[in-house]
């Protein structure tokens, strides 16, 4: 049984090929619905949408640079409890990785789910997307994927990929049941479908697609892309560390924050039902504010701003997948993603952990290891 197959692309219509593929998936007896990026009828926006009617697949657009939210949270809502009905969810690699973290945190389940990943062409920030997209969405999407797949980036005008996408070293899905390959593939003729799990293999067989080997140049072009992104990422780490390596600098970095907590709402792995910062824990006595003020002479209101970000770093930097939705959501242009990725890189390395890598890998701090950080805890 082949692990890879191909879909033919007719008339260089990549979207059309993908829609055909999704239709074939939805036609499968086992699949009850598909969750896909879908063009809203009322506005030129793309949103994750749950579809059961094959007719509606005509508006599917997984190649659009719109990325209004990380879909992991949506998929978590669909899979939190057993339904007995299988959904095929099309996700970007960072969405899959966030979803894997949510599964570990018991906020979602892998059962009743078929994950379809795509090679990620990247996305624009919400603001850039609205500026850029125009009225012809078919044209916009085609311009975008052509620009990205050609490797030249021409045709995007004065916008560029979102900062998170520019430093993302995971453009290719891992751990999806089925993965759509675009990089290093002659997309004018075909798309690559790869099964990454036993479930995926079974599906691939059921779909009856023609078997195919991955093109010889594919791995090379992925490696090149990852190398470029990693280099950009490391430069970003240096810049961010320099900007945040003292409490004073960190306070300046976060000075625009108005405690709106949008970043937390946008974060796919921030899974608390109610953030501790909006509970009574931080509902200080009115007198307390006055005491703080009199101790320091002046106190910025609202309080607990840096505390909030540090708490979020402590809670989820080990689960951060770098999707950049936090920055996307910030109304005041704080580079939240850069801060989180920089810290996450270090915390995850410290625990030899990589968010989203493997669903069987327990998150750090949930398990006791006797011999861990002996130099920190002072016990050996």
């Amino acid at each position: 049984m082949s692990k890879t197959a191909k879909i033919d692309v007719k008339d260089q219509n990549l979207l059309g090929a993908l829609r055909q593929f999704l239709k074939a998936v939805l036609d499968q007896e086992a699949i009850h619905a598909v969750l896909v990026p879908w063009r809203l009828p009322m506005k030129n926006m793309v949103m994750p949408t749950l579809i059961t009617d094959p007719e509606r697949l005509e508006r599917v657009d997984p190649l659009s640079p719109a990325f209004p939210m990380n879909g992991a949270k949506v998929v978590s809502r669909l899979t939190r409890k057993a339904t007995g009905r299988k959904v095929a969810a099309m996700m970007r690699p960072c969405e899959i990785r966030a979803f894997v973290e949510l599964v570990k945190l018991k906020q979602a389940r892998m059962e009743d789910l078929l994950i379809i990943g795509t090679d990620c062409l990247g996305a624009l920030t919400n603001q850039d997307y609205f500026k850029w997209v125009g009225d012809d969405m078919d044209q916009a999407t085609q311009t975008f994927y052509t620009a990205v797949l050609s490797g030249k980036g021409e045709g995007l005008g004065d916008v560029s990929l979102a900062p998170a996408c520019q430093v993302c070293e995971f453009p290719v899905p891992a751990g999806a049941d089925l993965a759509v390959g675009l990089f290093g593939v002659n997309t004018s003729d075909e798309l690559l479908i790869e099964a990454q799990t036993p479930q995926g293999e079974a599906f691939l067989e059921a779909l009856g697609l023609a078997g195919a080997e991955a093109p010889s140049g594919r791995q090379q072009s992925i490696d090149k892309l990852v190398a470029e992104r990693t280099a950009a990422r490391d430069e970003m780490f240096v810049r961010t560390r320099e900007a945040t390596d003292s409490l004073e600098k960190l306070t300046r970095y976060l000075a625009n924050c108005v405690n709106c907590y949008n970043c937390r709402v946008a974060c796919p792995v921030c899974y608390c039902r109610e953030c501790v910062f909006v509970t009574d824990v931080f509902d200080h006595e009115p007198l307390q504010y006055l005491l703080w003020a009199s101790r320091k002479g002046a106190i910025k209101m609202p309080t607990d701003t840096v505390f909030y970000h540090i708490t979020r770093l402590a809670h989820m930097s080990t689960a951060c997948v770098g999707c950049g939705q936090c920055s996307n959501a910030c109304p005041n242009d704080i580079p939240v993603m850069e801060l989180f990725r920089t810290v996450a890189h270090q915390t995850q390395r410290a625990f030899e952990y990589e968010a989203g890598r493997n669903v069987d890998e327990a998150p750090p701090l949930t398990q006791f290891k006797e011999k861990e950080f002996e130099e920190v805890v002072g016990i050996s």
Partner: protein
Amino acid sequence: MSRKIGTALVVGAGISGIRSALDLAENGYGVTLIDRAPHLGGLLSQLDYQFPTDRCGMCRMLPLVNRDASSQYCLRKGLFHENIDILLNTELISVDGDPGNFEARLRQTPNWVDPALCIGCGLCVDVCPVEVPDDFNEGLTRRKAIYLPVPHNIPNPYIIDFAACTRCGECQKVCPTRAIHLFDQERGRFRILVVDDEKIVRDSLKALMEEEDFRVDTAESGAQALDMLAATPYQLMLTDIKMPGMDGVEVLQKAKELLPDLTVVMMTAYATVETAVEAMKLGALDYLIKPFEPGQLIPMILRIYQGLETAQALTLNVGAVVLSGGTSFYDPKTGKDTLGYSTYPDVVTSLEFERILNPMGPTGGKLVRLSDGRPITRIAWMQCVGSRDLHENADFCSSICCMSAIKEARLAKAKAGGDLDATIYYMDMRTFNKSFQRYRDQAQKAHGIHFQRGRIHTTVLDRKTGELVLRYTDINGKIHEDRRDLLVLSVGQRPIPGMEKLAETLGIDLNAWGFAATEPFSQTRTPKDGIFLSGSSSGLKDISDSVIQASAAALNASRTLHAAGGHLSPKPSPAAEPMDVFRQLPKALVILCTCNGALAQKINLNDLAAKAASDPSVAHVEVLERVCTAEGWDQVVEQVKTVRPNRLLIGSCLPHVYARKLRKLEHETGLSSSLMEVVDLRTPLLVRGDALPDPALTSTAEILSMGLARLKRIEPLPPVTVPVEQRALVVGGGIAGMTAALAVADHGFPVDLIEKEAQVGGNLNWLSRTLEGYETKALFDETLSRIEKNPLIRVHLKSRVIDAFGQEGHFVTSIEDADGKMQSIAHGVTILATGGNEAKTTAYGYGTSPAIVTQKELAVKLEDKTLDPAQLKTVAMIQCVDSREEPRNYCSRICCASSLKFALELKTLHPDIQIVIFYRDLMAYGFYESYYTQARKAGILFIQYTPDQKPQVHVQDTKVVVRALEPIIAQDIEVTADLLVLATGIQPALPPNLAKAYGISLDPDGFFLEADSKWRPVDALKEGVFACGLSHSPRSITESIATAEAAAQRALRILSHAQLTAGKIVATVRHSLCSLCEQCISACPYEARALWAEQEKVVVHPVRCQGCGTCAAVCPNSASVLLGFTEQQMFDVIDAAIGSAMCS
């Protein structure tokens, strides 16, 4: 208060004593725990890390259920339990009366430092001019005459060494709390009468004591003495026993009639010790053996003097006595061959080496030579120094030294970072407890420790290099030289000083070497009913075995107390109605202690009081003198009764000391002690000399407001209780199961005993005798008849457990009988005693000849006479068959003893029989050693083999030929035997599905996995499930019975309460915030959390929760809350600490 009936006395507060005391206290009895030392912990206070875990963990002995009754901090530092009175510096003098109603007389050595006043500042040490060797470091360091007995105690008052103190008075002058009293009584008023017919004795005693400022008179006869006593009220009389006319005993009796409070010390030559002991029963305090040294006499007189001034001899009424006096160790100095000990500083005992490893030890924990401070790179251990040595009258094994030497080598290796050559010289490596063989193998393979069979016979010093040159003979008689930086002598056990005297006064037996002896099949019973042995007084044991024996002793003591009924019950005063302060605004009473004025010298107390009073939640602030004294405390109680606060904050010193007082205050006033807090204002100001306090230290105002912040936010919820099904279920009807069932039923609780076979008895059905010659049939018959007669025990034969669920206090077990009939039983505790069997084998030609049998087969054949020993000319035995190597890499502990038993029995019946035993390490641990000696004397041959060169066996007609390398002559030999007996060891019979049903785990060999192999040896990690007998570990019958008694005792801690009380600090869940990520469930180390799937809620089992707070730490959004440590509370405390809280 949960005090039920009766009180017990536990003598000796090492780990066994602590275990026995805690067990009895947890059952609800009152306990008096005494120790002659000024500290708890016994030997273990000197050892930081113990095998086989290479760490401590003593705190795991603390109660998990109703834990608020006890202290919850490091047990090596101290212990508090509401049912335990601890008396240190106290010895047992005598016990009279009957089980259930003894009168125990105790002697307390008081001290010149009042422990209630000493705050441990250490100013006295700076000025003390006297230096003597420090016992705590085995004499390797020096200390002052005023000193801390151990560095880490809580509380840790200084004490004065009478013998060393010159009474210069410097310490008294500098003591800030006036805790030291050297001269407050004039010795001249203490009048002593010396009665002796020998003038030289009278005069020398008079001179000696007058030098110490006592007033001494003498009398040359009993008659004269009585006249003098009639005329003058003397406080102390020293009288000779053997005198013409009236003898000393008569003088004693008549003197006591005249002056009942007179203290009398008998003087005697050695020959009349028995009379002296008699005299003590008649009221003498003690005796002195002539000739005596001044160094002995004067401290004794001083003790008596002090004792009379501050405390009378204490008499206690107790229902049962547990003796856990521990052991002493052999002093190589006293031996014939010292191996350079006390000549070369780098020859040390194992205990001294433990202190060298310790940071408080002589080298600050560095591995350097004591002689010249150079780094140690090569250490040798010499085993069996003072053990297994007939010349030293030590025909016993000390049981723990092999393991402790391995541990010391492993610790030394770790300390040296691996760059250390560690070699252990040994005769047999006795690694006979459950996990010990693997520990040894790991030491050898992973840690690179060398094991060398042989004995060092000479130690000389190479003066050029400072190295020790050790000469030893290997097994082939070849002499070798080995150069080492350090030689550690693994010294053996000796009875504690005074053991003989104690045994005589109490009427208990000693064995041939002076250790306490027990009754057959018991590790704890003595000939004296109601007096039980615990711990190493009956021979040294490792921690696990000591703790088991201690719980067994507690069980038997508890049985005595229970049988005696309630006539000794201490009557607690009725508790005040609990004050309901739920939803009330905080109304705090703040008490500030002046610390005898010392605090007022450093800070402005009025300012502090005013700051505190400015906090809206403070109702009243009171400044009191010396809250630590009884009078001071009375004022606190008065204040609480007057102000009626709902929070109490005390600013003083040593908060740990107040635990008990706060409990009492709760009892008297109804204010929950969880709403009381004591903060230490004194320590930050504790600066020697005139230096200013360290500015880095938190200020007193901040400390006080931190305490207040904590108190304000405490939610005063009533403690949760969980009902207990007061019934036990025991699975397995062997001797362990039967013993456990009886032990529980004897306390009045019903027991269901489940046995899969058609009859109970297990292995007792085929065993007949023990190595000691005790008949097992008698044991079986007696136990069975007690089971049959006990109406509380229901025996379910041919039955098995199908399934079970539940937790401590409430389990439900389904059992099925032979007819397939199901039955459900609700019970509060589960005891697993499913036993074990002799392991099967295919090794050494087993199965190919009727002449090759296992040990069990031999026993059966001898018993049913299918084997006639008279027909046997040669018998071979092979030990460790399929054992002590992977996959069954453990010692079965009883096979060596069994082989010795069979060999000695056969040899006794037929002296001409030739017996050859092939062994690896002969596990004749403890007092079994003497049978090993006996066997060798009887001509039984022992040939050692190694696992890589096992004996070869082939069958020749009706005979079996065993061929093996004889290491002493280094040649192969052949033994043609009529019978080959294989010691195949024990395999557990604990089915995994049974373990799963009760939520417990098995170890890699299928035995019960303990919650902690050292400290909770019969408990499962899941509270409420216990194991004993062979399913727990390979053991002799006596040892199995001890595990059964221990398991029953641990079960009774739960059964003896109708309700289990949760701690005041437990975790809860705020369900509205919980996102069900279950991180808290996997993080909880006590399995106290579970997902209630139907309700979609995470629930906490309040009794199981130990309030550790791990769940709260792991929960990202405070859905998991630790009551008493909420986040708001912690924020307030932090604010207080950095000075932005109310009263700063």
